[in-house]
């Protein structure tokens, strides 16, 4: 194992790069609490006279709480569905069966089709299901992501084959094996699924824009667009809005960070 001292040249490069990456976030945060002109020259590094007025304005000028709760509900639906559906599909792919390679090939091919290309059929299906202008309708296209199926499969493949076999011999039904034996041992995959589904459905703008008619089922990205259309000179309030919209995502990532990184690298190395 390398000693801590041997890592300092790497750290010397990583620290300034990390700071550089954080500059835009810092700028957004600083502007949101000061309302300074972002084009001011020379730029001030430290915030002067910070206040929360912009947050209050963003909160009250639009139904922020409604958008926020809607976004949370949509994300919650998508996360639960992804864990159940993708884990079940990933578990199925750990079995050997005729046509498995073809199915994996189809999955991979489908990953190459952009969502924009499937919007019309997706919309028609949503209409037929009577889910237009509902939170379930917004969440539906996020119910399964192929990349997460592969992440679950890799995670299950890394577990000893004897675990499901032992349960099977004891007469435990397959769905119970998945829920009670495999899933609890695939926490990194679950964390990855939670973080990625959160990001994708939290940030989704195009699909909600198509299926949502009313303000009371709008999510935060739609709210952001409406907010921009209501106000002209809104940089500081807009940034306050962005900060409030970012907080849940940052919290989810920090809570699941360790498991998330393990999940993304599952199957990449042995043991």
């Amino acid at each position, binding site marked *: 194992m390398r000693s801590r001292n041997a890592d300092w040249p790497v750290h010397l490069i990583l620290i300034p790069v990390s700071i550089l990456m954080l500059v835009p976030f810092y700028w957004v945060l600083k502007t949101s609490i000061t309302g300074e002109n972002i084009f001011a020259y020379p730029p001030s590094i430290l915030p002067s006279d910070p206040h929360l007025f912009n947050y209050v304005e963003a909160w009250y000028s639009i139904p922020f709480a409604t958008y926020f709760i809607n976004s949370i509900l949509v994300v919650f639906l998508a996360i639960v569905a992804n864990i159940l559906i993708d884990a079940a599909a990933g578990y199925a792919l750990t079995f050997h069966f005729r046509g498995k390679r073809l199915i994996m090939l189809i999955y991979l091919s489908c990953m190459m089709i952009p969502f924009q290309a499937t919007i019309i059929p997706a919309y028609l299906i949503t209409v037929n299901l009577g889910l237009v202008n509902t939170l379930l309708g917004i969440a539906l296209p996020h119910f399964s992501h192929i990349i997460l199926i592969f992440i679950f499969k890799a995670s299950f493949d890394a577990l*000893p084959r*004897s*675990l499901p*076999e*032992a*349960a*099977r*011999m*004891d*007469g*435990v*039904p397959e769905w*119970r094996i998945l829920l*009670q*034996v495999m899933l*609890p*041992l695939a926490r990194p995959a679950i964390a990855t699924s939670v973080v990625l589904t959160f990001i994708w459905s939290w940030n989704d703008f195009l699909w909600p824009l198509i299926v949502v008619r009313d303000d009371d089922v709008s999510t935060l990205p739609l709210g952001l667009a409406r907010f921009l259309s209501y106000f002209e000179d809104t940089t500081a309030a807009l940034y306050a809005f962005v900060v409030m919209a970012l907080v849940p995502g940052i919290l989810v990532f920090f809570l699941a960070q360790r498991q998330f990184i393990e999940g993304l690298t599952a199957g990449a190395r042995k043991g």
Partner: protein
Amino acid sequence: MAEVRIAGLRKRYGSVEAVRGIDLDIADGEFIVLVGASGCGKSTTLRMIAGLEEISDGEIWIGDRLVNELPSKERDIAMVFQDYALYPHMSVYDNISFGLRYRISDRAEIKRRVEQAAEILGLTPLLDRKPRQLSGGQRQRVAMGRAIVRDPLVFLFDEPLSNLDAKLRVQMRTEIKRLHNRVRTTFVHVTHDQVEAMTLADRIVLMRNGEIEQIGTPDEIYSTPKTAYVASFIGAPPMNLIPAIVDRSAKPMVRFGEVSLPLSDALSARAGPDGRKVTVGLRPEHFVTLGPRSGASASLPIKVDVVEPLGSDTLLFFSLAGVEGIARVPPEQAVRQGERMMLEPNLDRIVLFDAETGKAL
């Protein structure tokens, strides 16, 4: 309890045949050990009995049921896996009771069975612990506990001791034997360790290249191996196998270079014609050491290359007819490396094998 009958069992993986038509009848309550080198098909055979591998050909009967098409859970068997297959996120109690919950709905009965199994295996104080808090031996016992609470018709063991250190292995071997004596159910145990096979089995099934090389009691397998392979596989150290030629010029003998040994009447009758190439098999313990200039007619002059004192006895390594031989002598016999001496084999214990086919004569 049930007997297990295997007829013409085959397993093919594409063009590779892992099990090549084996026939085996296992009696009710018998302890059978499948033993052989890696890749001989023993684990595949066990997994086919368990229903974890599909059968390419042949039949498996458990009791009076043909189980070829039955899924594992309907075969009424329990298996202890090589890696124990304990669920890491469950307590010992949950590990043992997990499978029972799908067979018995009465919670009190489940609790009674788990507690009884824990009592038998000495796991009572550990029931609340997680597998990571247990030693290797304790994990092994939990795996056994999970099997015995099921009260199955047949127990299957897939190399359950191979992950344990030498001392624990001996201890757990005794525990398995004790468990069999207690439950008297049919046990099928797979191992590559011949000592495990010898100590545990009522009968040993020695496999090689997907076929059964010999079936017999440990004593039969040890004393009267049917092939040179069996002779070399069973026994630690293994049987000495020395290439020789049948010599009938005077009285029936086997000759290795300048040295020859007389054959008993029984062996002579089976040894074949003069000049036949054979392999002489002699267990290391079937030698007696004599002085350097012994007058005994049936003795082998050797030079001791290496001396290995084991405490209980001493192993002498020597060369004879171009192959390495081993003799096991009492520990009090002081032998030095490089010493020349005569070894007198027990002629009644000689086993002859055909040099070409390897089959016992």
